[in-house]
């Protein structure tokens, strides 16, 4: 009966995302007069699991073991559907990130449950069960009714917020029945980036283009990023030239991001680049060419030499701090 919520971890740690999901599930459970059960897959310490309790999880089922260390959407979907059956849960909540979007449809098929992705608030009504999601690139809201007994939702990130709840969760472990053939992924080697803010998670991004002239000129840009707690990004030509690592490439064929603040330095604003950043809340552009297309998209524009503007900007940020 409980509301089931899948809480994803990264290297054994939960992010804000997981706590937001639990907060949401707790609120939903309150409306339904039932409890909240969180499912965690992979090796997570007890102390970390306990954190979920702070946001209202009544029970935590943890699935551990060698087979579950690697994210495998099919395998995880199998495990979560077994939990749902065991707990006879009619409501399952996942994040609307890549993992959630990959697992949720599989759960929907397995459990014959109606699925709505990208939900932005608690149900509008419980009978009929109606939820709200954004459509048309966020220009409109749709109310969607789920008619099936089992209802699966993925929650859009940052749409509910964190709500702490006093309480302590029972932690139980669970072992799903998985056949040997179901295990199809074997990680041979993993390389990790350390000490950097992940681009797709960053709230502020400082990005450089060909206008930076040379890979040696990134110093002030990185300094500004560090000061702002921002991630660094770049345009495609820059990563093509090997000035910056490929994972910084932002745009149509690179990463598509939507930070609150995007600072574009020496980026002219070709459509392939803007297609990847246009959902940013505020865009600030620094460019020597006043006719550069980026100024069309920018909320604030500075026409000037980046090598003069950046130090001033850094100084100003320092002073403001």
């Amino acid at each position, binding site marked *: 009966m409980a509301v089931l919520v899948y809480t994803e971890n990264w290297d054994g740690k939960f992010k804000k995302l997981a706590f937001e999901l639990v907060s949401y599930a707790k609120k939903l459970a309150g409306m339904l007069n039932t409890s909240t059960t969180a499912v965690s897959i992979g090796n997570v310490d007890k102390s970390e699991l306990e954190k979920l309790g702070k946001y209202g999880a009544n029970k935590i089922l943890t699935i551990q073991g060698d087979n579950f260390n690697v994210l495998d959407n099919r395998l995880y979907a199998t495990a979560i559907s077994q939990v749902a059956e065991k707990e006879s849960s009619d409501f399952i909540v996942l994040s609307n990130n890549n993992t959630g979007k990959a697992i949720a449809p599989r759960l929907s098929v397995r459990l014959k449950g109606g699925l709505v992705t990208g939900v932005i608030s608690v149900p509008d009504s419980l009978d009929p069960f109606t939820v709200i999601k954004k459509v048309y690139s966020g220009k409109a809201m749709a109310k969607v009714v789920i008619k099936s007994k089992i209802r699966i939702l993925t929650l859009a990130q940052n749409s509910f917020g964190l709500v702490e709840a006093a309480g302590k969760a029972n932690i139980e472990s669970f072992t799903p029945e998985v056949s040997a053939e179901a295990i199809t992924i074997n990680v041979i080697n993993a390389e990790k980036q350390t000490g950097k803010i992940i681009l797709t998670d960053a709230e502020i991004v400082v990005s450089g283009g*060909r206008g930076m002239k040379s890979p040696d000129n990134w110093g002030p840009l990185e300094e500004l990023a560090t000061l702002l707690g921002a991630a660094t990004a770049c345009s495609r030509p820059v990563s093509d030239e090997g000035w910056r690592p490929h994972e910084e490439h932002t745009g149509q064929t690179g990463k598509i991001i939507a930070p609150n603040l995007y600072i574009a330095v020496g980026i002219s604003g070709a459509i392939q680049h803007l297609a990847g950043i*246009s959902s940013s809340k505020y865009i600030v552009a620094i460019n020597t060419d006043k006719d550069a297309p980026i100024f069309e998209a920018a909320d604030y524009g500075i026409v000037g030499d980046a090598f003069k503007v950046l130090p001033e900007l850094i100084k100003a940020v320092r002073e403001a701090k």
Partner: protein
Amino acid sequence: MVKQIIFVLILACAIYFFYNNVRIIARNIRLGRDISINDNRWKRWMIMLRVAIGQSKMVVRPVSAIMHILVYVGFIIINIEMLEILIDGIFGTHRLFSFIGNSYNILITVFEFFAIGVIFGCIIFLVRRNILRLKRFWNKEMTKWPRTDANIILITEIFLMSAILLMNASDTLLQSFPGSHYANIGGFTVSSFIAPLLSGMSEGSLVFVERFCWWFHIVGVLAFLNYIPYSKHFHVFLAFPNVYYSKLKPKGELENMPSITGEVMLMLNEEVGAAAEEEAAEEISFGAKDVNDLTWKSLMDAYTCTECGRCTSGCPASITGKKLSPRKIIMDTRDRLEIVGRNINKKGKDFDDGKSLFDFISHEELWACTTCNACTIECPVNIDHVSIIVELRRYLVMEMASAPGELNSIFTNIENNGAPWQFSPEDRLVWAEKIEVPVMADLHARGVKPDYLFWVGCAGAFDDRYKKVARAFTKILNHLKINYAVLGTEESCTGDPARRAGNEMVFQMQALTNIEVLNGYDIKNIITICPHCYNVFKNEYPELGGKYNVINYTLFLRDQLESGKLMISSDIFADKSITYHDPCYLGRCNDIFDPPREVLDTISSRKVEMKRNKSFALCCGAGGGQMFKEAEKGDKEVFIERIEDALETGADIIATACPFCMTMLTDGIKYKNKEEELKNYDIAELIALSLNL
């Protein structure tokens, strides 16, 4: 008598085997999907006369053209002599036609000159292939057999022609022997130069040489005839019908899929859809997986190809080191068809070997195509490579759901936002915020009917660089006081990138929705700035019920300038050297080469052409969905190759007439760090600036 019997037997066998092989090839071609090509007969005959008989597409490359014409004409003319040889062989006569007297010597002499021509041509060809090693004969698909095949053909022809000359030479000598049964008809100009080489020989040896050459020649010709169906040389027969059945439509127009129309109609309107679906019910799979899913014309293309490689040498993907080679696509189709044919012969009609065209052609090759049609322009026998590529893409996308990830996201974007990029349709008029643009819905509400619809396109609406072009053109329209309107938020992607990437479903959904809007406003004239939109409106919407007078803005500007309505008032570009880059979907695909150049003539007298221009212009690299994905692996990006052409001219400005070309070429300029030297403007911007707008 014995000789005659042997001769007749050999001849009968040769004809029988040849007939049999040709029948199999004809059967194989008919394995293809049935389409009817019997329109425009007169026009087709004229094209065949010009392209196949007249070799019009060969002459673009003069050296190989002259050599080929020597061999081709020689081959045809010498066949007249074959008639005499056949009659002589059957009836045991000798030089039967010599009764016509002196004319006979002249005739044979003419043949001998052609024989020399053929030998000369073949030697040059062998040198080009084996010593000069022209790149197009050494591409990766030109491995052992295709290379050997070419050499066998050339060497055989040299031998056959030499035999004729040697035979004639010994004949001339034999005539002078007293009491010889070789009638004294006199010598022939060319072979009389060879005769002295044989002069020391006895009569017996000479008779042996003469007879040997006669038999060698005729048996050789019959053997060669039977070799041809196994060889690329089959083009000597198929070139003519293949050119007759050429695609007459504009090169940019892709074949419509009625089966999809049914599906889409069903989604949009159930009643109409049901009827349409019933009509198209026979078709069960979309696109092509194997040869029998391709049209018979594509299969005829495969048998007609003589592997000259002009397509590949003009292909932007091949030039920049990508895996795609249009010639290989055709050769693979033929290889696969041959295997399917042999399976039918050996194991019956229903045998399935579990293989398909995808065992020959990789996805990487297919996704490297820009659908620029450089290959189809180059092909001397009008093979249509692009159709095969698009059919295979359609299968990958609609049956296998295995398009590259980036393309999947543009399909979703087009479906959800009506644009290949993820921008909101509500923002479609943001580009016009600061200028005056009449919107169709407003005019309609006031009962006003504009003369023209200005179709802005997704790039004009969302690409910050191209918004400037949309504004420039709007200013020109306002300046001319044209009675026009834009659709604004009612505009939606024409579906072009989806169609060319193989997603016919998304294309037709866009097409049918757009047509409904356009017909709702009773629109007659559409002006486009984007050539891709232009191509779709002009060539592809009519079949789906959208028939409009479609005008590309370069034509519109040309007409306005010509009629004096538009007067260039400033000379800001007069001393600038301008080069024009032909967008594929304006030039090659729709034959608009001159109007943009004529427009540019009005603002500058210093126009320069790039080395590859007009129908041979190199693609910018963005067509066929490439704009929205990473390029396939290669040595170089296409746009860099193209910008090098432009830089070579030393021009100050590269003028374009397409949003995709603009993006790619501007990128190219940046990669080369030539932003100071070379500027990229659209023709509309140059005119607007020249008008001080």
